[in-house]
């Protein structure tokens, strides 16, 4: 097994179920990610990541590999132009683990092409998205102007 390229961790004062829902519910992702995540979230299904603009611009596509609510979600992750090229899809794993009164969210991103635009984009993106998610769930306010 090759080693993951990026591992991001945040501790959020919430329940695993609320956090799970915040990853999948487009009305929630719209608030802290400024994008809507859309899928039926069944293994094998596709998922989409669309900007909350007038056109709902498609930004990312992929497939649901594993969905074990409220603990583990594995997705493939690609630019829409690479939708048909599965060898170019990267992989994101969300792991939710309750620790006392808080929940640890670990996001692992791997299978990224070295030097790719996607790699640069996710490096900038994940810390913002996760800080914004934590802020929304803990104080009811996401970070403004993420992108």
């Amino acid at each position, binding site marked *: 097994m090759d080693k*993951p390229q990026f*591992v991001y961790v945040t501790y959020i004062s919430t329940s695993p179920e609320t956090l799970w829902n915040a990853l999948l519910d487009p009305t929630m992702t719209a608030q802290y990610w400024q994008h809507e995540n859309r899928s039926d979230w069944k293994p094998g299904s596709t998922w989409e990541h669309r900007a909350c603009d007038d056109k709902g611009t498609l930004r990312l596509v992929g497939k649901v590999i594993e969905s074990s609510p409220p603990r583990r979600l594995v997705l493939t992750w690609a630019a829409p132009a690479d939708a048909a090229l599965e060898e170019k899809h990267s992989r994101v794993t969300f792991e939710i683990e309750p620790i006392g009164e808080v929940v640890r969210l670990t996001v692992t991103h791997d299978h990224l092409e070295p030097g790719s635009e996607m790699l640069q984009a996710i490096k900038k993106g*994940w*810390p913002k998205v996760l800080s914004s998610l*934590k802020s929304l769930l803990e104080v009811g306010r996401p970070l403004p102007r993420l992108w």
Partner: protein
Amino acid sequence: MLPMDMDGVFRALASPARRKLLDTLRAKNGQTLGELCTNLDMSRQAVTQHLGRLEGANLVATIRRGREKLHYLNPVPIHEIYERWIVQYERQHLEALRDLKRKAEGA
């Protein structure tokens, strides 16, 4: 202790050796303890101790791969510092400049 408080993050960052360790992980993510010792020219004991502090502050995340423990730079708390201690101050500066501009243009 849960690595949630910002004091812990600032304390962890208040050491040149630990900042160097973070830079080493930024250059190459997912290193083992052995690799870090070689790349940092520090004793195993010192690196272990610093890694413990960084992990406690959630600046380093670890995962196990077989017998190896891999260390990853976790920039999420640094982003929280940025949001709390940089963006907010910047915003005040920008607002002050805007007010100054309004006054100057109105005069």
